[in-house]
């Protein structure tokens, strides 16, 4: 306990020092003037100051606030030394920041009791200050860590720019980190995938699971896997990762290149609704599954709902944060409220809906993360130009002899070769279908001389394939040439298939009825190609596909 005694009268100082020493306070310093007191205090950092009011250079009223200021956040008790009868002076002492006073003549018992009491308060203040310092240090550390994690999240959870423009959405986390997740990625076929989900709880703990999910979702989107496979894979990833009491309710959706067909897997999220421009709800994708990260792989149900909406229809989805939003009267907003707003104003933007929910919440705290998304069915053709295509005009020619034809199916390898060129992967599925049908026709009808008429009866259908297998195994002559060329300016793939057979009646191979089990190949080709031309009695065919 270090005590600074400030008094211009040496007798008073002497008395005080003596009295304090007797009481056990041996660490005492003396100052004769206000200035000296301030200089000394700076140096010795006293724990308590006994301060005289009247001094020649600066009076105690001036010195006290300066001493207090010097002590900063830590409580420095200043006890004024006053004359007993001067009431105005006593009041002033307290007004300028003094904490107490000791009246002359000094009473040892009272003075030491006062010093003890103030020492206790100072100790408490010191402890609080130290804890504050530690807390600040800790908080700065956490803030720094959060900033790093936020940076990582911001990079990992970005919504693909090309697809962003098609959505109207709003994410409102309840704290810095969002336990809700919303991602959109283009699909290789010219459509989009989106993932909207909600981890148990909110904040950093629930946001952490978003990283592996986002990575898996983005990688699978690039590959163009089905919605059911996506859900299955994410479930498997999370099952291995999350603690048992944590899971991820999610909707995984694919929007076709046409912009209005949906494939939806909904596990534990509120309904996803399709709303027609007149406000009627034409489809609800209700949750059919448990949330992700709960079921074992063999219990997992991957079935998906499909819906063909119309251009102009809206797909609306949200996390439970919006329906469980509570106002100050502890009333929940509820799904019906949101849907009724949309029924009365089907064009209501996400911003307007958010505005209304905020108004409902009023001053109540937002307890959960909120996600709200809207997609209006529209042409997604803008997504296509994103794929730059090769500028190289090229031609691939494959000459297949009987030996090749009996041994393997060349279609897959040719498709891989063509689609490995820049930008051509987007036609992969169409090209494999078309090339396969053309090749099969050349092989079956041209080389193997099989007549499709056999397939007219059910038994004939199987007979045809037996005959085909047999003839193929016995094949010793014949040749099929496949030529594929790409014209970069027109972005057109031209496919020529020619066989050494006698040709076939391509006109007659037409399915007469929807239920016929044969003659489906050529109509399929016509649908997928820009142009289809048979010539040389069906021995050659030339088709074009627009990339």
């Amino acid at each position, binding site marked *: 306990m270090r005590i600074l005694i400030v008094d211009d009268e040496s007798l008073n100082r002497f008395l005080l020092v003596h009295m304090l020493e007797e009481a056990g306070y041996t660490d005492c310093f003396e100052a004769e003037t206000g200035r000296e007191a301030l200089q000394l205090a700076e140096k010795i950092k006293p724990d308590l100051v006994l301060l005289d009011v009247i001094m020649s250079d600066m009076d105690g009223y001036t010195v006290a606030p300066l001493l207090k200021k010097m002590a900063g956040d830590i409580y420095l008790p200043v006890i004024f030394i006053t004359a007993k009868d001067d009431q105005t002076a006593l009041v002033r002492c307290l007004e300028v920041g003094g904490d107490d006073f000791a009246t002359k003549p000094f009473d040892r018992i009272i003075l030491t009791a006062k010093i003890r009491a103030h020492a206790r308060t100072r100790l408490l203040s010191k402890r609080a200050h130290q804890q504050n310092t530690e807390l600040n240090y800790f908080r700065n550390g956490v803030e720094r860590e959060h900033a790093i994690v936020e940076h990582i999240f911001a990079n990992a959870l970005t919504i693909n720019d090309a697809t962003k423009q098609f959505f109207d959405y709003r994410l409102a986390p309840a704290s810095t980190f969002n336990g809700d997740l919303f991602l959109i990625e283009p*699909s290789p*076929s010219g*459509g989009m995938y989106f993932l909207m989900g909600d981890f148990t709880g909110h904040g950093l703990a629930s946001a952490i699971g978003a990283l592996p999910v986002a990575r898996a979702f983005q990688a699978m989107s690039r590959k*163009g*896997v*089905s919605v*059911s*496979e996506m859900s299955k894979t994410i479930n498997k990833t999370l099952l291995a990762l999350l603690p048992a009491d944590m899971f991820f309710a999610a909707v995984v959706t*694919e929007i*076709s*290149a046409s912009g209005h*067909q949906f*494939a939806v897997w909904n596990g534990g999220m509120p309904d996803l609704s399709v709303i027609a421009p007149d406000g009627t709800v034409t489809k609800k994708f209700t949750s059919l599954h448990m949330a992700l990260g709960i079921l074992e792989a063999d219990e997992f149900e*991957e*079935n*998906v*709902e*499909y819906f063909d909406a119309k251009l102009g229809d809206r797909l609306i989805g949200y996390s439970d944060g919006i329906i469980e939003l509570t106002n100050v009267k502890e009333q929940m907003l509820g799904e019906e409220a949101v849907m009724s707003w949309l029924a009365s104003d089907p064009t209501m933007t996400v911003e307007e809906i958010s505005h209304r929910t905020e108004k409902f919440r009023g001053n109540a705290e937002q307890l959960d993360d909120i996600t709200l998304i809207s997609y209006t069915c529209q042409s997604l053709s803008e997504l296509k130009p994103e794929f730059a295509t090769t500028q190289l005009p090229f031609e691939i020619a494959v000459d297949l002899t009987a030996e090749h034809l009996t041994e393997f199916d060349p279609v897959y390898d040719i498709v891989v070769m063509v689609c490995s060129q820049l930008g051509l992967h987007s036609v992969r*599925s*169409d090209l*494999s*279908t078309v090339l*396969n*049908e053309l090749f*099969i026709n050349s092989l079956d009808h041209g080389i193997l001389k099989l007549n499709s008429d056999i*397939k007219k009866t*059910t038994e004939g*259908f*199987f007979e045809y*394939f037996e005959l*085909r297998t047999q003839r193929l195994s016995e094949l010793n002559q014949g040749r099929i040439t496949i030529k594929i060329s790409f014209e970069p300016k027109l972005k057109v793939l031209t496919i020529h298939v020619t066989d050494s057979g006698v040709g076939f009646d391509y006109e007659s191979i037409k399915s007469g009825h*929807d*239920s*016929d*089990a*044969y003659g*489906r*190949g050529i*109509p*399929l080709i016509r*649908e*997928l190609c820009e142009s289809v031309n048979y010539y040389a009695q069906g021995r050659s065919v030339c088709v074009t596909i627009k990339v």
Partner: protein
Amino acid sequence: MSLETRISDDQNVLTIYMEEKFDFGKVQEFRDAYLHISDSVKTIVVDLSHTEYMDSSALGMLLNMQKIMAERIETFKIVNCRPQVVKILKISRFDKKFDMS
């Protein structure tokens, strides 16, 4: 090798799981999968979640199944199609003949 099939617990639904490629190479296996099933089965589900590719003969095979089994089976379903498969099925108007939800 035969295709994976599963009968529901109540014996009413047969699910046939097709592989990556669904083309003429599967003619025999596909027929074997549905031909010798018990009378209790009322629904046949063809699960195409693993099918990345199907051709016109696969379409024929599906229609043949429907023809052969029409008297015994009430519902034929095609489920979990990938987009490229949906496209082929739609071009061929299979969505009118099969339950594709």
